[in-house]
C-alpha cells in the first residue's frame, strides 16, 4: 500500500467499516433523545399553536427567531471558509472544508424550520413562495421576510450543490473501496460514475472555482438579508445601517467557532491527528480571533450610533441594555464574545486543544446569547411607556432549541457515518506537493 492511499483507507474505514463502539453509540442515543424532544415540541406546537411559547406583547419574536438567526449564522461559515480559502489558494482548507460544508448544509436546514414554526400556521409556509395559485395572490415583494425566503433557499441549494460536487471524487473512492453490494450501489449511485479522467478533473476544478466565486457573495447577501429582517422596521435597537456587516461578522464568528469545535471533536473521535493538524487548528483559531475583533468593533459602533443620532428612544434602548432587567444578558454576551476570545492571542492557547474547545463553545453560546439579547432587549419596551413587558421562554421554547441541536447532531452523525469526512483527493494533493 503506497503512502498516498493511507488517507483514502482511513476515510473509507470511518465511513464504511469501523463499527461504532461505546462513544459512538452514546452520541447516537443523545441525538436520538434530543430528536425525541424536538418531535414532542413540534407536535405540541402544531396541536396548540404558538401560544404555548412565552411570546406575548410586546415581545412577539422570542426564542424561535433567536434560534433561527443563531443556526443560520453558523451555517454561513462552512461554505465561506471552504470557498474563500479555495479562491485564495490556501491548501490547508483541505482538512476542514468537507465537514465545514456539511455543517453549513445541516445548520441552514435546521435554521429554516424556525421561521416556519413561527408562522402560526406552519403548514401554509409555501405561501411565501411565488407560484400560480387559485387564490390569485403573490408574495409581498417589499417585505424583507420574502427576501429572506429567497436568500435561505438559494443559499441552501448552492451550499448543497457545492458540497456535493466537491465530494464526487471522494464518493468514487468510497465506491471503489466498498466491500458490500449495498455500499457499491449507494456510493456508485452518489458518485454518478466519476472516473477521474483528466477532462473530468479539469471541469471539476473550474466548477469548484465558479461555485466558490458565487458562494462568497451569496454568504454575505444571505446574512445581510437576515439583518434586514430586523433593521427594515423602526424598532429602536434594530433600525441601524450597521446591522448588515454586524450580522455577517457575527455569523462568521459563530460559524468559525463551531467549525473549530467540530474539528477538535472529529479529530479526537477518529484519530485524525495527521489530517487535521495542530497547525490547521492554529489557523482556524487565528481566523476566529480576527472575526472576533470585527464583532467587538461592531459592538462598539452599536453603542456609538444611538448617541451620535441623538434619538432619545435609541439612547434609552441602549442604556437599558446596560442596567435594565436584561442587563445580565448583555454583559454575559460581551464576556463570551469579546473577553474570552482574546485568549487566542497566545500561541500556547492556540496549540491547546482543550482550551480551543472551551473557547469555541463559549463563542457559540455567546453568539446565541447575543441574538437573544438583541431581540428581547429591543422589543420589551417601545416608544410608548404603556408597551412595556417581560419575556421569558417556556419549556416548549427550550425543548425546541435543544431538539434542534439534536436534529443537527443526528444529521452530522449520519454524515460522519456515511460520507467522507475530509477531502481525500485534496489532502492527498496537498501531501504530494509538500513531499
Amino acid at each position, binding site marked *: 500500500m503506497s503512502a498516498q*492511499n493511507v488517507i483514502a483507507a482511513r476515510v473509507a474505514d470511518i465511513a464504511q467499516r469501523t463499527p461504532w463502539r461505546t462513544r459512538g453509540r452514546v452520541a447516537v442515543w443523545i441525538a436520538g433523545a434530543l430528536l425525541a424532544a424536538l418531535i414532542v415540541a413540534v407536535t405540541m406546537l402544531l396541536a396548540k399553536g404558538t401560544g404555548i411559547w412565552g411570546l406575548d406583547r410586546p415581545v412577539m419574536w422570542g426564542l424561535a427567531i433567536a434560534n433561527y438567526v443563531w443556526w443560520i449564522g453558523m451555517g454561513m461559515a462552512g461554505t465561506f471558509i471552504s470557498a474563500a480559502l479555495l479562491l485564495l489558494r490556501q491548501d490547508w482548507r483541505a482538512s476542514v472544508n468537507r465537514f465545514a460544508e456539511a455543517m453549513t448544509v445541516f445548520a441552514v436546514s435546521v435554521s429554516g424550520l424556525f421561521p416556519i414554526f413561527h408562522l402560526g400556521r406552519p403548514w401554509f409556509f409555501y405561501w411565501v413562495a*411565488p407560484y400560480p395559485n387559485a387564490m390569485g395572490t*403573490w408574495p409581498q415583494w417589499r417585505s424583507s421576510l420574502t427576501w429572506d425566503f429567497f436568500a435561505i433557499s438559494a443559499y441552501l441549494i448552492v451550499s448543497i450543490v457545492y458540497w456535493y460536487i466537491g465530494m464526487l471524487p471522494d464518493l468514487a473512492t468510497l465506491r471503489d473501496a466498498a466491500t458490500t453490494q449495498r455500499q457499491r450501489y449507494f456510493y456508485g449511485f452518489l458518485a454518478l460514475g466519476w472516473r477521474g479522467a483528466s477532462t473530468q478533473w479539469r471541469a471539476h476544478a473550474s466548477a469548484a472555482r465558479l461555485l466558490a466565486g458565487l458562494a462568497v457573495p451569496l454568504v454575505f447577501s444571505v446574512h445581510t438579508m437576515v439583518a434586514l429582517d430586523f433593521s427594515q422596521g423602526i424598532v429602536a435597537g434594530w433600525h441601524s445601517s450597521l446591522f448588515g456587516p454586524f450580522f455577517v461578522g457575527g455569523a462568521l464568528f459563530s460559524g468559525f467557532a463551531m467549525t473549530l469545535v467540530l474539528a477538535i471533536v472529529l479529530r479526537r473521535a477518529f484519530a485524525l491527528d495527521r489530517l487535521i493538524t495542530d497547525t490547521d487548528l492554529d489557523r482556524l483559531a487565528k481566523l476566529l480571533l480576527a472575526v472576533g475583533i470585527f464583532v467587538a468593533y461592531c459592538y462598539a459602533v452599536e453603542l456609538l450610533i444611538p448617541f451620535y443620532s441623538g434619538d432619545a428612544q435609541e439612547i434609552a434602548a441602549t442604556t437599558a441594555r446596560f442596567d435594565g432587567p436584561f442587563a445580565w444578558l448583555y454583559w454575559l454576551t460581551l464576556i463570551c464574545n469579546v473577553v474570552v476570545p482574546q485568549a487566542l492571542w497566545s500561541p500556547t492557547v492556540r496549540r491547546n486543544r482543550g482550551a480551543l474547545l472551551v473557547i469555541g463553545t463559549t463563542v457559540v453560546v455567546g453568539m446565541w446569547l447575543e441574538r437573544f439579547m438583541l431581540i428581547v432587549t429591543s422589543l420589551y419596551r417601545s416608544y410608548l411607556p404603556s408597551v412595556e413587558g417581560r419575556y421569558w421562554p417556556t419549556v416548549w421554547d427550550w425543548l425546541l432549541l435543544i431538539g434542534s441541536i439534536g436534529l443537527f447532531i443526528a444529521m452530522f452523525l449520519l454524515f460522519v457515518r456515511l460520507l467522507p469526512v475530509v477531502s481525500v483527493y485534496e489532502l492527498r494533493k496537498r501531501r504530494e506537493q509538500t513531499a
Partner: protein
Amino acid sequence: MSERGLLIEFDSADALQRARDALLEDGWMPLDAFTPTPPAENETAPALYPRSLPIAALFGGLVGGIGCFAMECYAAMVGYPINVAGRPDASLIAFVPPALETTLLGAAMGVVIAFLFAARLPRFHHPLFDVEDFAHASDHRYFLLIDAHDGQRERLHDRLRALRAVSVHEVRDDA
C-alpha cells in the same frame, strides 16, 4: 471519443506523465488519463476551462436575475397590486434583493449543468469499469488509455516495461 483501447496502469503520477509523453512521441495516441488526484497540468491550465462553464454561469445568472425581476414586476404591478402605505406598485429597489439571490442561484445551477455535460456525468456504466483494476484509479493507481488494440500489445511490451507500467488491460466497447 473512442472508448476502446489499451489501458496502461502506473503507480505514480510521474510515471504516467513520462509514459504519456514518450508514447505520444512514438506515434501512439493517448486518449485520456485517469488519476486519483487532480492532474498536475490543472495547476497551469486556464482557471476556467472548458469555456462552457463560465458561459453557462453567465447565462444562468441572467435568466435567474432577469426572470425573477420580471416576475416581481408582473406580480406587484399587474397580477396582484396591493397598496401598502401608499408605496408605489413598482417599488423597483425593493425587487432587487430577491433578484440578486436568484441571479446567484441561476448562475450556480448553470455551472452545475455545464459541469455535468463537460464531465459526461452521470454515467453509471462505462467500459472502463469492466477492467477490474480500474477500481484503483480512485485510490492509488494512475491509468493511461491509448488508442491501440490487443494485437498491438506485443509491440508495446518492451517499451512499457521501460516506462515502468504496472500492467496493461484491454478495454472493449460494450456494443
